[in-house]
């Protein structure tokens, strides 16, 4: 492991000032991504500024039905928090279906949003990777790419955004609050995740030293019956092959309002706006769900091993919508059923 210097700070201003002043430094929260990347020499940071003492752990209900989540709140704490479970079950489910219990106990919400991709070539310093070393090329496009993205890709990068939580937050129009060297900022979540374009090394619009301090989720009454569906090879401890966060409000047999976002298939947490537009005002039937799914995946591009994800994403959308409307033909497809494996909270 590379020699590192380490310091621990107690307030946000010092944290931001310390990292902003040193281009070789970065923040250390749960460490579940940063330490891994240090060990494989992918993280360039030589100095870690430990922010775990900052007062950013709170999970608070906001007037009107929203919620404020401190950036240092742990995944496991957020997943179990009553306001989250009551108002935004898709967030709770996305968290509980991610990582392992040990990782969830360590990993912070801010770190979750900033986690780096799981592309094997990104994590292998001997491989070509535009995200790690701009201009070197992308080994994944013609390589082992079963887990890679089919939406939002370019010839520069096809790495999948790994976060489950971010998919739920994108569906809910969350806001990311930061403190930068030049003061506080608020980012609509859509602006917080950058498509790779020809600059895949730029994943967020953050300045060096800018610290995520909180996430705010605005009120959304229909989200109290939302859900997160994650499709993967094994039941636990694996990133999604495809996932969907969905909330639906029906008016009779018609979709009055819908939020839909996809994970596991795109280079950023993917708000399925084409599908939402198709669905809104459409009858809540499998046929219109399938039409919306086709519409959403129309621009998708496969790269060989991951071609299947296009069809899988379509079917995941249909399934998630059927679950959201309580389709009686599904056996264990309710939101409650999804939680049975991991959820031991009260």
């Amino acid at each position, binding site marked *: *492991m590379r*020699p590192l210097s380490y310091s621990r700070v107690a307030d946000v201003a010092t944290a931001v000032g310390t990292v902003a002043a040193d281009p070789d430094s970065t923040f250390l929260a749960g460490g579940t991504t940063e330490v891994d990347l240090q060990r494989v020499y992918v993280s360039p940071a030589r100095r870690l500024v430990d922010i775990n003492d900052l007062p950013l752990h709170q999970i608070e209900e906001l007037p009107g039905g929203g919620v404020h989540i401190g950036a240092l709140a742990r995944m496991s704490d957020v997943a179990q928090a009553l306001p989250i479970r009551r108002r935004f079950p898709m967030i709770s489910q996305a968290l509980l279906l991610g990582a392992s219990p040990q990782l969830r106990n360590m990993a912070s919400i801010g770190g979750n949003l900033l986690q780096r991709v799981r592309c094997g070539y990104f994590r292998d310093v*001997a491989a070509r990777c535009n995200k790690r070393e701009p201009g070197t090329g992308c080994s994944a496009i013609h390589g*082992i790419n079963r887990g890679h993205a089919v939406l939002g890709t370019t010839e520069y990068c096809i790495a999948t955004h790994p976060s489950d939580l971010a998919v739920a937050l994108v569906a809910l129009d969350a806001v990311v609050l930061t403190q930068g060297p030049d003061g506080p900022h608020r980012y609509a979540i859509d602006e917080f995740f950058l498509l790779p374009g020809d600059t895949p090394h730029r994943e967020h619009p953050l300045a060096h030293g800018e610290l995520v301090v909180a996430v705010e989720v605005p009120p959304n009454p229909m989200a109290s019956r939302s859900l997160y569906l994650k*499709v993967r090879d094994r039941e636990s401890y694996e990133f999604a092959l495809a996932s969907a966060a969905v909330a639906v409000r029906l008016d009779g047999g018609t979709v009055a309002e819908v939020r839909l976002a996809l994970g596991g298939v795109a280079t950023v947490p993917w708000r399925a706006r084409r599908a939402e537009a198709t669905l809104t005002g459409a009858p809540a039937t499998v046929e219109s769900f399938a039409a919306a799914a086709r519409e959403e995946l129309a621009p998708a591009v496969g790269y060989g091993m991951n071609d299947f994800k296009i069809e899988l994403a379509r079917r995941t959308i249909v399934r998630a919508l059927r679950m959201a409307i309580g389709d009686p033909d599904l*056996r264990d497809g309710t939101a409650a059923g999804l939680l049975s494996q991991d959820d031991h909270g009260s």
Partner: protein
Amino acid sequence: MSPAIGAALDRVDGRAKVTGAARYSGEIPLPGLAYAVLLGAQVPSGRIIGIDRQAAMTADGVIAVLTHLDLPRVAARPRLFPSLAGLTAHGQSYFPMQDDVVHYAGQPVAIVVADTLERAEHAATLVRVSYAETPALTLLDQGREQAYEPEKIFGGLVPGRNPTRGDPEAALRDAEVTLDLTYRFAVNHQNPLEPSTTTAVWDDVDRLTLYDSTQGPTATQLSVAELLGLPPVNVRVVSHYVGGSFGSKALIWPHVTLAALAARQVGRPVRLALSRDQMFHSCGHREEQEQRIRIGADRNGRLTALTHDKIGLTSHFDDWAETSLESAAITYACPNYAGGYRLVRGNIITPTFTRGPGEATGMFALESAMDELAYAVGVDPLELRLRNHADTDPETGKPWSSKGLRECYQRGAELIGWADRDPTPGVRRDGQWLVGTGMATAAYPVAAPISPQRARARMYGDGSAVVEAGISEFGTGALTAMTQVAADALGLPVTRVRFVGGTTDLPNIAAAVGSAGAGATSAAVHLACVQLRDQLIRHAVADQGSPLHGADPADVVVRDGRMCRRDAPQVGETYAELLDRNHMPDVEAIGTWTPVLPMASDHAMHTFGAQFAEVAVDADLGRIRVRRLVGVFAPGRVLNRKTAHSQLLGGMLWGLSQALLEATRMDPHTGRYANENLADYLVATNADVPDVVVETIEVPDQVVNPLGVKGVGEIGIVGTSAAIANAVYHATGRRIRTLPITLEALL
């Protein structure tokens, strides 16, 4: 006193393991210990044209940076040979860091030694190696036209073609029903929890102690001694606890000797622990392979012809193929049979044993094909297997030493509810889930070492006993089972017996591989303890001071540490009374078991079992969830019900893993595996584990070894993947012939 053998005795080392008191090879505290880190080649083929180690040499804490320019030449060319033979047991016929040629990615090209592990790891990243690359072959598909038929495989122990029976081509031409099916298998890696670790200490200029994670301490001793040009007496190996192996530590790989060489170069004890990613290119793997099966049968499903051909990717050094054809050739009565291996040489390390080596793939192919035959002729899959049951060994005609397969079928069928099964595929719905059941036969050869197996038993004056043999405990429960064996043979409660293994100072036992460990070790331990007991009984009947004086030794039995006359149990005395009266501090005996080679035996020796699975497949999303597994096995005598069932259960779950998850993906552009970590190389998690039922059927076996132990190490995995694949077919109507079966195949 009820017998100890067969009881569900708790692991004698359980407490030490869960409290952390058990020390593994990477945990031995030593003064002056330095840490070695291997640097592997980043290209799969070429020459080293330059090594810049300046930055590494000057990094903090660095003691040495060693390359092929520094290391001495090894004293012998290693030769791949399975460790069961009890001789030198190199994993491949090649030793790295002897010249500038790169044969496979990950091949060691430098060793960095530093005062801490972190500093050694860092300095290793500062070594700049330049290569002149040459074209590489890393996938089977790149070299099919170069395939050849090896004369022998498996270190020269197994012919490249199985014995042919009858005229299979003619029988196929005449068959009423024929099938021609091809099965493909991903590369699998063993991935024990503990990566291979060696700590090397030179006690003198030419005396070496190795703390090594190995399935056989003597295999390490003989192999390293040969490469270093030392007599074996100068190499001592200690291996008390090993954190799993699954074949990765069955043979001796170069890093073990490199650790010793590095320690000698720096004049300090050196610890070399492979990292997780290095475990993917340092100790073999289950090779990429394809198997073709052709079946001829009559309308009733009776086999008339079977051919089984395998092509696999091996290294440039060795004709390695896991022996996938052996059990499949003798599972069913079939008069016409042919089978053989073909190999393609590639830029990879030599493949090796991986859990259920050979049978885990070969029986997947055969048992998948049998299921297809069952549907082709409209016969229930279990009934089809009974119709083709081999009452004697189809290859030699010899009777089985024991079998029990019919009983396994029957019990497994009861447990899974097979009698009510509607064979129609793709019709059972449970909401969005399609549900199906499948079954398969499990078979694994009963192997034995070639060399004599020894153990030593010593009784102390108080009547307690220590029994010793040079095995390592790599999670199987051997220490516990051997305690039970010793207790019964000596007539002592298990609390009065301690079994000790773990060093080459002790009587020699071959590496515990191929499910042979329990049979070989129990034989030596049993014989040593019987020798000791008989010695004590003879002493008692000759002792005028003993109540047993003058008795016929054959009429004396021992219960709970007390020798007595069988016909008059009140006449007798304890071991302790005898020894105390005679002022004897201890008594010792050696037991030696000389195995009978299979070809020299009048019997065929094989272990059998039956596997059943129930799966649910998400009709839309292709997700496969195993709901139930039932495995019933006939492994001869069971030494410890709990540890044996744990091993069988573990085997079945590895079978689930092989069926649905495990695949190491080679990127032919880089010539390296793209998923050398446990986040991307998937194995089953607890959440994937369904309701699993394991039962054993004890069939007496007088032939295989003194206690009739056929072993449970491998049989648990064999057939599980086929039972699952057959259940997937029953659920969906989709026949998947490639492992692992992932959801894209079912969309």
